[in-house]
Structures are given as structure tokens and as C-alpha cells.
């Protein structure tokens, strides 16, 4: 019983997060200006981080936690660098 509940909840959560990733990447591809693309990339990073956490619940493997922590860190650094690039035109000055 509890295995069934957990299986369906994880499946629905994974489908919802996958649709969210598709929407964020549509915004990243279409987005009329550069800042929209950066915002879409940021949302894509955070959605994939959450998707990996759901994977770790589903498989019971605690290794996915480290992957999702690394993705969160890299997403923060990437978005800050891209915002700096939009602001100044160069990242390291």
C-alpha cells in the first residue's frame, strides 16, 4: 500500500517537474531578450535540482543529494555570471 502511494506520488511529481522543465526551456529558447533567456536557464537549473531530489526519493539512493547540491551551486554561479555579463558586457573586469 505505502509502496503504491509513494510510487504514484513520485511519478506524478516527476511528470510535473518534467513539464516545468519543458516550459522553462521553451522560455529560454523563445524568450524575446537576453534577460528572459537567463531567467529561463535559472528556472531550468532549479527544476532539474528538484527532479533529482525526487529521483533520490524514488530509488532510495542518497547519492542523488550530492548531485542536486552541485547543480544548485553551479546554477547560482552561472546566473550571477550571466547577470554580470548582461550588466557590463564582460564577466571578469
Amino acid at each position, binding site marked *: 500500500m505505502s509502496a503504491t502511494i509513494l510510487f504514484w506520488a513520485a511519478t506524478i511529481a516527476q511528470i510535473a517537474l518534467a513539464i516545468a522543465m519543458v*516550459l522553462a526551456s521553451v522560455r529560454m529558447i523563445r524568450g524575446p531578450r537576453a534577460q528572459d533567456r537567463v531567467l529561463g536557464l535559472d528556472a531550468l537549473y532549479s527544476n532539474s535540482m528538484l527532479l533529482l531530489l*525526487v529521483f533520490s526519493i524514488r530509488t532510495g539512493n542518497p547519492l542523488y543529494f550530492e548531485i542536486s547540491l552541485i547543480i544548485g551551486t553551479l546554477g547560482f554561479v552561472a546566473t550571477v555570471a550571466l547577470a554580470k555579463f548582461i550588466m557590463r558586457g564582460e564577466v571578469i573586469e
Partner: protein
Amino acid sequence: MNQASDLPLWAALLIAIFLLIGAGLTLIGSFGLYRLRSFYDRIHAPTLGTSWGTAGIVIASIVYFSVVESRLILHHLLIGAFVTVTTPVTLILLSRAALYRDRAENGPDIPLLEPPNNPSEVSSTEKESADSHNNTHTIEK
């Protein structure tokens, strides 16, 4: 799903509820990012996924691993704290960069610095006080 059959029912229900809350809020936030019109509307939408979306999924994984390994496991809070701290920083940087670009190029939808005040709606006493305030302001200048 190897250890999932050992879970008690209340834990499975709690995990399922928090998973669905988190994933649903993230989906709503990304839908807003896809759907809203201007950039300054869109920048609000994904924060739904980074606030309660992340919190729901982090709480679900804390409950799952604590029940499975039958001890308190809290290192998933690290992700929640990190995302909570870094999201406002990145979004403030990004919105200031976008505002800078829009002001430099005189873009179409720049948010106003102050809300526009309509002089016809201001009553006479308020107008007088505003005038006196303006006078003192000019004198001070």
C-alpha cells in the same frame, strides 16, 4: 523502490503530500514564467518553485530518509537553505541588469520609479499642504 514497502502508511502519505505540493508549485511557477507578458512580471514566477517548491520536496526527502534509516537525517536542509539564500541575490542582480539595459535603450515596459499621482483627485487642503511643502522644498534648495 527497494525499501519503500517497509514504510508505515503515515510516512508514505506525508511524503506523497509534500512531493505533490512541491512539484505542483514548481509547475505553476514555470507555467507563469512561460505565460506572463513582460519580463518584470515573469521574474516573479519561478520564485514559487524556489520557495515552497523546494521546501516541499526537501521536507519529503527528509521524512523519507529519516524513516528509512530510522534516524534523523537533516542534510537535505542544506539545499533548502542554499536555494533560499541565493535566489534573491541572483534575481536582484538579474533584474537590476535588465532595468539598466531597458533604461539605456528606452525600452517599452520600464517600471515607474513612483506611482503616477493624478492632480485632479487631490483635495484642496492636500494641495495646499503639497504646495507649501513644495515651497519649503524650493527654499531649502
